[in-house]
């Protein structure tokens, strides 16, 4: 990539917006995943009995079962949320930046 193109793109408001919005979004989702997972693991380390509590009086199923399955499902849902927004909003912005970079080149 030529330096003039780098200078042009780095000052392109669309590029700045893409980078800002996408990194905020990606970091937010990353932190959500880290909090869910390490919250789960540290609960096990500090107080395993929480997850061993029966779901309702007399049931064998414990709180840990829906929580564990919930962690798995949350990982999938978070990837879905990211892909949905990236395929729409972020890709449109990227295409716009590329068109401008090409058109003016």
């Amino acid at each position, binding site marked *: 990539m030529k330096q003039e193109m780098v200078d042009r793109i780095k000052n392109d408001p669309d590029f700045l917006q893409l980078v800002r919005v996408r990194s905020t979004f990606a970091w937010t989702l990353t932190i959500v995943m880290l909090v869910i997972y390490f919250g789960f693991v540290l609960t096990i380390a500090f107080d395993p009995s929480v997850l061993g509590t029966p779901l309702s009086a007399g049931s064998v199923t414990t709180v840990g079962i829906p929580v564990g399955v919930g962690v798995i499902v949350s990982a999938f849902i978070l990837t879905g949320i990211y892909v949905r927004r990236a395929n729409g909003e972020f890709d449109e912005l990227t295409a716009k930046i*590329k068109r401008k970079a090409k058109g003016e080149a």
Partner: protein
Amino acid sequence: MKPIIFLLLGSAGIFAGEAISGAVDKQPLNMSAIIMFLIFVGATLAITYWAAKRTKTAKDFYTAGGGITGFQNGMAIAGDYMSAASFLGISALVYGKGYDGLIYSIGFLVGWPIILFMVAEQLRNLGKYTFADVASYRLRQTPIRTLAAFGSIATVILYLIAQMVGAGKLIQLLFGLEYEIAVILVGVLMILYVTFGGMLATTWVQIIKAFLLLSGATFMAIAVMAHYNFNFESLFAKAVEMKDVTIMAPGKLVSDPISALSLGIALMFGTAGLPHILMRFFTVSDAKEARKSVFYATGFIGYFYILTFIIGFGAIVMVFQNPQYLDLAKQAVDGGSPILGGDNMAAIHLSHAVGGDFFLGFISAVAFATILAVVSGLTLAGASAISHDLYASVLRKGKADGLMEMKVSKIATVILGIVAIYLGIAFEEQNIAFMVGLAFAIAASANFPILFLSMYWSKLTTRGALLGGSLGLLTAAVLVVLGPTVWVDFLGHAEAIFPYKYPALFSVSAAFIGIWFFSITDRSESAQREKEAFEAQYIRAQTGIGAEGAVEH
């Protein structure tokens, strides 16, 4: 005493204390398994023949021409990642300890969203064939490529040994073949797939295997649930009646907070540093397909782990204490209710319990296919590190001819295959529980920090990456050796020098701090240029402008 598949295929050193005693008894020849296995081998060799005709350039060889779709790649990633360990090892862990099996499998899944949010698209936009392309993008080629290749090869070899030994034992059990013959068979098939069919054949072997494994596991889970009218409470109630109530709660898997954090870090960031997984992102055309790959892969892998949980409980209610699967000889010595072939066979016995001999044959063949798909992906990644990073970039300074590079890659594949066979046989009797754990620790402590910081930190310099990455690698290796899994279980000392089984918390921190420190104190002229080059790299990483194989608009 033969520490079996459980240890080898299972990932971190968690399984260290659970060696299955007694020699592995060969099973009688299982005809339906052998016929289905032969069909699988025949079909995959036909695919390899087809792929070989389409593999003409280095790009074809490393990335299947870059034309794999997001969905296909998601399936192939799942096929690459769901090893026989996940299937047999995790269902065995659920069978033996209940809830702990779920905790373990969750750790293997949660790295995927991180890969998507942080790594996948940037990797696709910046790289060509290996993750070292990205790590060395604006840094000095020779030192960074060498370190990255070393990290890749170390990860691949450790992982390969574990897979080969596990494969030998498993096939011995399932098919009644000699251990050596089983290991050689796996090695030869893997060499054939990779040398002739390259990434295209490897991808399709992984896709087919993922499909077979998911179908088989789905059938087993449904068959189990049908017995209990699809009511989980009834299944769990019966399982608790068979064993005891502790299987429904966390047990001893994660005991103290340091180990918990360290294991979590190893699994999460290790996944994002596995060379054979990272390489898969170069097989798709652009960032969009890369991100779709991770979405599908996360779905398939998560679904699979839920199935293994049901299968483990299914085995408790249908296999445990079932006289048909009881190992009478072992019971006479050790008491309890051991099953034939050990806990790892829980899922295999369950397949017989729900589907008879025919389905047992199918699941056995699937287990074998699973191993083949995983070792092929590993070997291809190892060979690429040798040919693309060491030969073409370090030795020939990027001036290697594509065809020559591909030839080196094929030679490297054959050599890696032979090394894997040799080590697989050499380590038959060894306790190698630490190997996959060490592979993950190295991936998390050397590969991942360099890759991650090269993408996101403008002040990274060659010196920082080289010293910090090496520091992470060494810390991981030394702490694993001094820790309980090697120092006590492998070398036989009474007490470990380093008390924790998982070094990642310390070694990953060492890598990040080392890279940071040696980068910011680097005042050289080349460091200045490397920092200035970040801008252009960042624009390409974010937009894909100038990316290898990107679709022109």
